[in-house]
């Protein structure tokens, strides 16, 4: 899953301009940005979490497919399997647009369709689910863009808002399409690129999450709750990546790390289903690549792979993402 983001990048060294559309971040940090509180990953996007900007009167479209699956998960901090659910797979199709509104300000809009199910007959015989998840709207602003003889430093604040667009049930884990709550991501991202093409980005995100509605009006969260409303824990997300532009800026490759830490929440109880109130921690590593057929615009392809290697109340999920981008002026 991924989020995505869009991007475009100005490669303005030596008057060469290059735009990159939808780059990865979405793909890169996706999970995290997304949330996943437990078992599922929302595609939510986060946003603009890339160090690239679309110019004014330019837009970029992304269509991407993600396949994620896991057959182990952390129950609290204990890694386990569960034949009641066996291997759970989540497939996502995401459509997204990035639009250069004015110079230095980009607007993002995205909507994912998710299908989640056990990939084989399981001990649980539980039905999977599919449907539209959460619509995302985001803004990213280039606050600093300072060039020196060796490279360029940029700083980007961004904000993304997402909210469910269908009546999917968040309290149906591990198959729930999403967390069923509105979410606001406040992000600050610092980017430094050497003129040679090597770059690094670090980012910090405060993920505010609201409440979700279950279809039962009692649940246990370290005590009784007589309500259908569940408090979905907010979280911090940290990201870091190193990458490089290659082949005359047609290709770039990155490796990345991302971590998510819920601020509150309860643990999944022994052999019990997760619920949206769970405290979710995840550490993930991934690789990302983007190829642009023509640096001036038109079609591009993005691909990424990532895996969660450590977690708490989280799936040990591995995801593969593939997408095409199209960039144009308007």
């Amino acid at each position, binding site marked *: 899953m991924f989020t995505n983001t869009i991007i475009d990048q100005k490669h303005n060294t030596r008057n060469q301009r290059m735009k990159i559309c939808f780059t990865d971040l979405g793909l890169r940090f996706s999970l995290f940005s997304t949330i996943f509180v437990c078992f599922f990953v929302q595609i939510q996007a986060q946003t603009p979490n890339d160090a690239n900007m679309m110019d004014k009167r330019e837009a970029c479209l992304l269509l991407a497919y993600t396949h994620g699956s896991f057959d182990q998960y952390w129950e609290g901090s204990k890694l*386990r399997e*569960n*034949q*009641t659910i*066996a291997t759970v797979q989540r497939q996502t199709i995401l459509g997204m647009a990035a639009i250069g509104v004015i110079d230095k300000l980009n607007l993002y809009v995205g909507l994912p369709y998710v299908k989640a199910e056990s990939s084989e*007959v*399981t*001990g*649980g*015989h*539980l*039905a*999977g689910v599919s449907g539209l998840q959460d619509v995302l709207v985001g803004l990213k602003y280039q606050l600093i863009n300072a060039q020196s003889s060796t490279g360029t430093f940029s700083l980007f604040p961004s*904000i993304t*808002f997402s*909210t*469910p*667009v*269908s*009546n999917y*049930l968040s*309290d*149906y884990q591990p198959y729930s399409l999403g967390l069923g*709550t*509105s*979410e*606001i991501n406040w992000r600050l991202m610092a980017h430094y690129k050497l003129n040679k093409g090597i770059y690094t980005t670090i980012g910090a995100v405060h993920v*505010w999450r*609201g*409440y979700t*509605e*279950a*279809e*039962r*009006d*009692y*649940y*246990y969260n370290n*005590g*009784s*709750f*007589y*309500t259908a*409303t569940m*408090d979905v824990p907010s979280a911090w997300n940290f990201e870091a990546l190193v990458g490089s532009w290659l082949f005359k800026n047609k290709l770039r490759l990155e490796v990345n790390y991302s971590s998510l830490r819920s601020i509150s929440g309860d643990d999944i*109880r*022994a*052999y*019990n*289903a997760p619920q949206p109130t769970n405290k979710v921690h995840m550490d993930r590593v991934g690789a990302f690549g983007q190829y642009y057929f023509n640096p001036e615009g038109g079609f591009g392809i993005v691909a990424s792979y990532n895996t969660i290697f450590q977690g708490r109340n989280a799936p040990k999920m591995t995801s593969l993402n593939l997408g095409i981008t199209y960039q144009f002026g308007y």
Partner: protein
Amino acid sequence: MKMKRNLFNAIIAIGCLMFSSCEQDLPSYLSYSYTYSGVDADGGSWKPVLISSGAEIQIDAPADVNSAAYKEEISAAKTAIKNMTDAQRQNVTYWTNNPANRWNEIALELIAKYNLIPGPNADGTYTLPNAATPEGPPAFPFAHPPYAVRALAYLSVAQFDGLIAAWHYKYLYKRTAAYKNDNEIKFAYNDNDIPAYPSDAAVIANVSKDVLSVMFPLEKTYLERRAQEHLESILLAGGNVTSDIEAGKKIGSYVATKALARASTDGMRSAQTPKPVSDSIKTKAFERFGWAWDNLEIPARPVGLTPMFGKVKLWNVPNVEATRPIPPPAIGSEELKKDIEILKDYAANVTNERRRIANYWQDGLGTYTPPGHWNRFAKEFIIQYALNPLRTVRTYAYLNMSMMDGAISCWDTKYYYHFPRPINLIPGFKTIAGTPNFPAYTSGHSVFSSSGAEILAYVFPNEATKVRDWAKEAAISRVYGGIHWTFDATVGTEQGKAVASYTLAVARNDGAK
């Protein structure tokens, strides 16, 4: 509706964005405060369940309100009230003038905490909770619905008997409340004319702590702390002096002992059978009917849930055969084929309404179970109709005896007929609710709900239509969930009513008007 809510959430979120915080207060118990609708001055003559009468327990006459001893107690109470901390003041508000509701909530919370099914070991075997080594793993108990309703039944029956005894002595000795004997004491709750000796709240504190400590042995320390906190609040509320409380505690301990003695020999200990016994029950059913239910989990659980719960001692039904229903439709019959089509149709067309109903009534693992759900309904009606403490525990006692008899009757039926679940008979079938580890016919939800609803319909006649509709919805919810046949639900509903009729016959003749 849903879109509206999403829009609402979106607006809230944007609001939070601007103003930083929007924490909601999510209720973990029900707040209330009211004046009793009646005092039931004759309550001491009602027929209890386990003790012979309210007079069985010997409670000495209290000191006169004009005696030096009583005045000393009043003075000690005043000092304690004067030195009350904010935390103590909050406790007084929390425990209320009808604390059986609070102990019922505590029981439901422990049920939800312990309602966790043991998972498989690494080698594919299962270890069951053991009362002899409660720490586990897995921890004892697994508070599944039969365990839960049994715990609630003993709790409520002991509370009921205890308050009948309390009422007997209250109206025998007629010692008035502390705040009526000293106008410097202000009562924390709404005024009433029920005599104070012995304290009914102290009966409830002690009996609840004692019964729940045996049902949830790992919670002994926690329950002791809650009971101390409750007992302290009784004095601080201004209604009782220490001797009222001590007399109440004595009654509480006495009836708890009685209840726990019955519990220790009611057959629950043998309900979870070893595999050979479970296999022979299954073989018998197969020989009788030509079918048997199988657990389909991976790895398969060797024994279903409590195969011999049907042999546990009944409260009011004369024998378990009295409410055992007719056999289910035979495998291969037209009636079953029709049901298979209904189940397939529901699975292929999960409407919002059916999904909502399936989830609302699910009360599955990790929750307070269906009996817990009906106790919650009872509590809400008790408060709505302003029942006094005695009427309150009478309601819980008949409700939980009826539902426990319902569970015994239902489990007898389940293992007598051993009928397969939809996932056993429909290839590739998938459900939106988890399939439980016991045979299908009849549905536990159906029997619990109608055996409980009939009691609530009797105690709260204005709510009869509502609670009976709820019971029907709870029953069909299991069919919507894909885990029960329609006849599991409809026959189970009738079975629950039959069980309740025996409970009601007792209730109607216990002396309460």
